């Protein structure tokens, strides 16, 4: 008992020191620093395409790097690859388990991955020899549901799980290369840095963590949210992160200043944030909420500058294409919409 007490004391003392270090660099707040710039003008986006085809709640979507193809996963047990311009289904992949919670598109465009309550990450080869899409690998080792997965390249993928860990896999051998432990609650979401050297994870312990992929270490931890962090993303410059939580707020944390810079909230917003994505410049943050809307925030001034209303049920996932041209939202109403 005595040793545990001592360890806790040490941990608390370190936390206090970190807090002090953060305060020491707080020579201003982001709000003060941006006082001189004007809010971005009202952003009005329209639905340009509606992707119909799923028969149940959509839980996840991910853009391909060509900004035209995207993949979506639904509880109807299907993974669909869409040509979002023509709204045609390029592939409709039936899944073994219908309780799918996440999907990802490889940067090369050769693979898609998905997973969910089966605790596995299944990799599908889209460019098979005979044209059929088959399971290429099943990555099984997690002891909890798969909440999110992201490819680093065709040979490596990172997954986050309800077992509170994130794992870096080698797809060829199907083995875990690195296990990232440290979260004390289900990991709900992850995002990879633009230079592919780091990734961030948001969890049900209300914290976000920055991990060094190569070293396997947690470099930084960010708190402040009052409930589960459902969604996380990198600011386009790679030096800041954004989180969305059940406490109905989004927060911007800076990695170099090691602290929260600003919170995006409004007394009129009561429902949790399910998903978020920054625009190409990072000036806008699009966040999907449980109240069926997407709110668009001016990331620097922390003001709402637009609303996307069009779904008839919760917005569960959102993504901005890599050329920044379009935003795709997926919902429990079984539709995906493309906006800009």
């Amino acid at each position, binding site marked *: 008992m005595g040793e545990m007490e001592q*360890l806790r004391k040490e*941990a608390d003392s*370190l936390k206090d*020191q970190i807090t002090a270090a953060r305060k020491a*660099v*707080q*020579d201003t*707040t982001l709000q003060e*620093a*941006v006082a001189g710039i004007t809010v*971005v003008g009202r952003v009005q986006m329209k639905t340009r395409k509606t992707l119909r085809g799923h028969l149940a709640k959509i839980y996840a979507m991910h853009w391909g790097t060509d*900004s*035209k193809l995207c993949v979506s996963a639904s509880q109807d047990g299907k993974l669909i690859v869409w040509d979002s*311009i023509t709204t045609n289904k390029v592939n409709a992949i039936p899944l073994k388990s219908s309780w799918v*919670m996440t999907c990802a598109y490889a940067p090369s465009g050769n693979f898609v991955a998905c997973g969910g309550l089966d605790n596995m990450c299944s990799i599908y080869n889209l460019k098979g020899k005979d044209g059929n899409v088959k399971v290429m690998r099943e990555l099984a080792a997690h002891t909890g549901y798969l*909440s999110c997965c992201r490819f*680093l390249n065709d040979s490596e993928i990172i997954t986050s799980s*309800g077992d509170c860990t994130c794992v870096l896999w080698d797809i060829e*051998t199907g083995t875990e290369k690195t296990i990232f*432990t*440290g979260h*004390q609650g*289900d990991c709900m979401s992850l995002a990879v840095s633009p*230079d592919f050297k780091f990734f961030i994870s948001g969890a*049900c*312990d*209300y914290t976000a963590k920055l991990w060094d992929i*190569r070293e396997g*270490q*947690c*470099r930084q*931890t960010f708190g*402040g949210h009052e*409930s*589960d962090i459902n969604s996380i993303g990198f600011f*386009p410059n790679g*030096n*800041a992160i954004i989180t969305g939580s059940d*406490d*109905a707020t989004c927060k911007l944390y800076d990695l170099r*200043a*090691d602290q929260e810079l600003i919170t995006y909230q409004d*007394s*009129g917003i*009561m*429902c*949790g944030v399910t998903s978020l994505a920054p*625009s*190409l*410049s*990072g*000036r*806008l943050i699009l966040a999907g909420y*449980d109240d069926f809307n997407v709110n668009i925030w001016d990331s620097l001034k922390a003001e709402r500058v637009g*609303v996307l209303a069009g779904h*008839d049920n919760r917005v569960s996932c959102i993504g901005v294409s890599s050329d*920044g*041209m379009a*935003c795709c939202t997926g919902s*429990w109403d079984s539709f995906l919409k493309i906006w800009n």
Partner: protein
Amino acid sequence: MAEGSRDQGGVGTTDPEEDSPNMIVYRKIEDIVTRIQDEKAGGVAIRTVKSFLSKIPSVVSGADIVQWLMKNLSVEDPAEAIHLGSLVAAHGYIFPISDHVLTLKDDGTLYRFQSPYFWPSNCWEPENTDYAIYLCKRTMQNKARLELADYEAENLARLQRAFARKWEFIFMQAEAQVKIDRKKDKAERKILDSQERAFWDVHRPVPGCVNTTEMDIRKCRRERNPHRVKKSVYGVPDDGQSQPSPIHSSSQPRKPTKEDVQKEITFLNIQLDRHCMKVSKVADSLMSYTEQFMEYDPFVSATDPSNPWIGDDTSFWDLEASREPSQQRVKRWGFSLEEALKDPVGRDQFLKFLESEFSSENLRFWLAVQDLKRRPLQDVSARAQEIWQEFLAEGAPSSINLDSHSYERTSQNLKDPGRYSYEDAQEHIFQLMKSDSYARFLRSNIYQDLLFARKKVILKSLFLFFFYINLHSSISHNCLFL
């Protein structure tokens, strides 16, 4: 509350059910609903409205609710107030008295407040037996307002088939409920009946309406007591019919072990052992980044040619793919070396420039290492050796200039080659290119010509020059024949 420990995150609540995302929303709504009903504290006036032959007790108009929301929650846009009010209605806290669809309208439509007994925060998960009792008792009472809607009649028929063997029991319970209801005062009954109906509108919604009691399955799993006895709306004892959901598993909360705390201490030390940048600097960096890229952000600035999604004109993408970069695109290469290398055309142009200076080995090394990091594991060892031979070995054909420290480290790494064997060397070379060749690239003709679209002008003038020469010579040529 100690800022320090809170800041590092903590899951402190004792009751996990209080944590559930729906519960968080319920508490917020209940706060609003309590305030809005408090007439003394500026709430809406709840009154009895005279209708044709009867009085409608305890109602308020949709417009009044919208007004209150706008005034008390500082909502400027009435559409937003309606959206918020509809959320409150969708969860069953207010309901229209003459409709099953739970939305808020900004007009004279009359609404009533739900009784706290039926509030969703009481964790009702009403069984079909309760629903059957409810529908059954409605058919027993000869009142026009209690007539079943089509979908309710269908539901009743289905339930009768499902509960065929225990229908007598359900019938008896329904009769008992009717007896209880009869004892109540007429006005009170009107109110209670409507509240009961609104309760069922939430838990058995009209087909096509959203079921707001649904929870994200990822959050469902954390319920601590999924096998608890579910309470019945009508006090019917649970006969063990409720099946435990396949999703729920008895996930015991993990108590942090000594190893957990030790690991946390390691992480905290890593975090402490880093240089914190001033917030003012960081803020400036964010502002300048967004400012620089806002002209490239299609959501903020109009694109040229137009956004392919608007108007179905794909010329923007055709241009991107055509390897003929626009001036705006070329300008972006000048923001940083990272931006130049991100764009395949930028990469090619930088390579071309370096080749003209006979110093392309640095970039080629950098690109080779990037490629190495993406190779399948089985190819890594061989490829790493190839890179060594090409760029770093004694007498290498594309010898790069590494400081002795990085050279030593890299050759050590190669004893056990892996994806990150060249990480240090790559970083060193990147910094070299950034501080030396990149700056010269930006000043070079290759870059400047593209940036100011000079090539086209030169070609044009050359073309015109030769055209006139030809014209002149052909005229003189023709003159000879005259």
